[in-house]
């Protein structure tokens, strides 16, 4: 990746669209006014109107296209190189999905179109619900939540509704210390107190700690399995039993579902509620930070409380083809927690996910998980064979699932470079760094998730690059500590950004 090019001065490359504005330039040509030009004062009284127009940029269409094209080249992206960002599942985004999502029958369908005139959309959603139900091993699905964190929120609210329905009041939710930050943040937002559960010497949930904290005040245990360490909880059945014995629900954070599709299912493990990250496991493009979608699947006992409306299939009784079922939105759900957002969820994401599941089928999804786990373990083996693990030991030395966690602590001590420095140096080699400093309980953590869509050659090359950076650091740690050098900008002064926040352009 290069900067905008030698023809462009560095300063020009950094101008915002507002700074390119010149009075009188424009791109938009309004449609002709085909109704009477009534004075605005008659239509909107002056005291309700703004005195000054919003100072939006004044730019021509070619300038807009060039501006955003240049900006795009200041991004690293998945189509340009390896992106092993742990816990984010940066797998290839098939372009078929963009094509089908853009079909006018999907893209220009109004969300309040009457169900009988949106049968294709409702059928797609119903079929997607069925597929997600099968993949998770739980019988009921709501597609409504907008992202993983929103699905988590739904899960905790469902837990509350379930207990309240039974006349129980519980105040605490358990989260392992390895959990994603969204888990404890969700718990607080849903009005519960967070209780942390420790991790044992093998990287599993500390069962003694769990037992000690499993009281009748506990509403739920939120668990990621495989965990954020990339490890499967072998005692998950026992965990489920502990949680269910106290009458709590067991919540599955689906961020790492890519490891187990077609191999085992959260429902079979005893989970009551699962969220899916369609932008991780099911290839919705990440978009630079969204959109995503976070559907949930639940057990029978949680079903009455699912958000409103639900997509349902009814046997046809009045249509032209009596054999064809009718799809509908069911609002008549008296125990529902209610809505979590407007309309029916991120349908455009559902179209892509459905296309993906139809393309791969049962065997293909299993192949995804097998290959994701194969690639992760192979990469770990390559790093080991190159001696990388001497400086960056794996946090818990077992077979990993689809990702693994290394600790940069020995590297920091012996080579005088931190995990951050390694990450920044990787940028100079055209690789996006893994997730850094997460999970929190691993010192100088590096969480590596290669995904199934990478070739063996890419994994080999990445291992070589890491080994090369460590050799380089042994000779001169300053190189990594000053990295990156080849990127559009070098390390940024983040302290300054936070101390004196400049969050918009002064106009």
């Amino acid at each position, binding site marked *: 990746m290069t900067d905008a090019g030698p023809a462009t001065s560095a300063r020009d490359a950094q101008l915002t669209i507002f700074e390119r504005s010149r009075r009188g330039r424009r791109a938009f040509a309004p449609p002709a006014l085909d109704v009477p030009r009534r004075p605005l004062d008659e239509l909107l009284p002056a005291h309700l109107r703004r005195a000054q127009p919003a100072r939006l940029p004044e730019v021509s269409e070619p300038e807009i296209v060039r501006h955003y094209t240049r900006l795009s080249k200041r991004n690293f992206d998945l189509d340009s190189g390896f992106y092993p960002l742990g816990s984010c599942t940066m797998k290839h985004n098939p372009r078929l999905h963009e094509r089908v999502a853009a079909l006018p029958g*999907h893209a220009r369908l109004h969300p309040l179109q009457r169900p009988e005139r949106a049968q294709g959309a409702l059928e797609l959603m119903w079929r997607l619900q069925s597929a997600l139900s099968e993949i998770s091993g739980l019988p009921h699905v709501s597609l409504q939540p907008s992202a993983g964190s929103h699905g988590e929120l739904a899960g905790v609210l469902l837990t509350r509704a379930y207990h309240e329905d039974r006349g129980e009041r519980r105040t605490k939710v358990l989260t392992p210390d390895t959990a994603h930050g969204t888990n404890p943040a969700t718990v607080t937002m849903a009005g519960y107190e967070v209780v942390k559960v420790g991790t044992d010497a093998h990287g599993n949930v500390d069962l003694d700690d769990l037992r000690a904290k499993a009281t009748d005040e506990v509403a739920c245990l939120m668990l990621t399995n495989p965990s954020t360490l990339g490890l499967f909880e072998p005692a998950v059945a026992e965990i489920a039993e502990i949680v269910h014995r106290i009458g709590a629900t067991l919540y599955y954070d689906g961020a790492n579902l890519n490891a187990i599709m077609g191999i085992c299912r959260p429902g079979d493990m005893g989970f009551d509620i699962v969220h899916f990250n369609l932008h991780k496991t099911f290839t919705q493009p990440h978009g630079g930070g969204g959109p995503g979608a976070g559907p949930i699947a639940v057990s029978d006992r949680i079903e009455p409380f699912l958000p409103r409306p639900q997509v349902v299939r009814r046997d046809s009784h009045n249509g032209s083809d009596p054999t064809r079922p009718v799809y509908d939105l069911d609002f008549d759900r008296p125990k529902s927690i209610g809505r979590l957002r407007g309309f029916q969820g991120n349908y455009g994401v559902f179209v892509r996910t459905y296309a993906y599941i139809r393309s791969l089928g049962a065997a293909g999804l299993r192949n995804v998980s097998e290959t994701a786990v194969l690639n992760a373990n192979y990469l770990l083996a390559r790093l080991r064979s190159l001696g990388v693990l001497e400086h960056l030991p794996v946090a818990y030395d077992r077979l990993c699932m689809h990702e693994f966690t290394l600790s940069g602590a020995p590297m920091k001590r012996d080579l005088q470079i931190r995990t951050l420095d390694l990450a920044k140096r990787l940028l100079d080699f055209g690789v996006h760094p893994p997730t850094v400093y997460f999970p929190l309980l691993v010192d100088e953590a590096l969480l590596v998730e290669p995904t199934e869509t990478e070739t063996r050659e890419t994994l080999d090359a990445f291992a070589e690059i890491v080994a090369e950076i460590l050799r380089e650091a042994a000779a001169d740690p300053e190189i990594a500590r000053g990295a990156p050098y080849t990127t559009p900008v070098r390390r940024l002064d983040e302290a300054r950004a936070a101390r004196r926040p400049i969050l918009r352009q002064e106009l």
Partner: protein
Amino acid sequence: MTEYTAVTDADRRQMLEAIGVGSIEDLFADIPEALRLAQGLELDAGRSEQEVYAELRALAARNVSTEDELSFVGAGMYDTYVPALIDALITRAEFLTPYTPYQPEVSQGGLQTMFEYQTAICELTGLPVSNASVYEGPSAVAAAGYVAKHATGAHRFVVSRGVHPHAIETLRTMSHSWGMEVVEADLRQGVTELPALGDDVAAVIVAQPNFLGAVEDLAAIAAAAHDAGALCIACCDPVALSLLRSPGECGVDIAVGEGQTLGNRLDFGGPSFGFFAVTEPLIRRIPGRIAGETVDLDGRRGFTLTLQTREQHIRRERATSNICTSQALNALAGVIYLSWLGRDGFTELGELLVRRTAYARDRLAALPGIETLHDQPVFREFAVTLDAPVEAVIERCLRDGVNPGYPLGSDYPEHERGLLVAITELRSAAEIDRLATVLGDAVVAERSGSLQEARR
């Protein structure tokens, strides 16, 4: 079956050997045998790309989109024109495929667009601080309520019945968990009539324009909220802010709204984005990502995610919100759209909408059996009352290829015969005339039909 993997049999053999295991099965040794699926998933076999395309196209064909009928349905999302350059720019892989800009050195494009977006939202709302987007409109209202709850410590929300019903319901869903009470303020002649507020109100929440299309007097509502020690939250149509006094100027503390009309497709309800802007004192309570300007080691201008100590990945259970992934790509479409409209074009679009809407309202109100539901100023949407059963009227219109609007009865039982009609820049005067003809005829037909029934 389509695959997006690249492992050959030879690769697999060699990779397993390098790992030191005999088979793929061995990699899953930590999963207890009893939990392994004995059979495969019960899903259909995979298909080729062209077969999947054909299936998705067939499903699309069973939907009646805004290309297939003349639609005047709005009620929160609008059939607006998305300029071609947005499709071209947001499908660039450099915007489409990366994730949240955790590594700012290689994410300047995304970060700068967030900064530009924030600037545009601040300009629209007249508020000094915007985040980089939230999920969508109704959940943004609930998120704003959460900010107000913490900022005031009070226990009630007063929400206007002119706020989108989905937003009120979302606020209720969340308020239950927060131990907050939600009190609805009625509409009088189409606009919010605030009750006596008392002293335990966290926020007064209104929509601008409201769900019935009426423009509210935001300044008066904000003043009343502040007098009661509450914040004022306004859920705004961003395009209406082309002409309307900005929420910031009116004294609103938090302006949120649905961003779909800014360059995003309908997509049967999403993905779009929600915008979220606040006053300076609320800066450290705002949810979600924020990009800020700074410099790099060499003193060059650069952008980075900032104020992250508010966020879940740093602050965990003490975060201001649990939001992580938001709607970066949709917000990018938003800022490109606003740049495409530009300063003058944005105003011109607003003026076109307000004049066409006035034209449509006058046309319909002149017809027998149709009256305006209220006479407040409107921007792009207005409500009428039909002297005939609404559902039957709509059915008739649909048969003539016109979807005349959104029936209000299920959300407003007192407006059982109310119809909400939305106008966008895509609906020409000729199409509005067509609506008048078709809707007028349908009302006449159903009116006499119901009269006859009554006589019988």
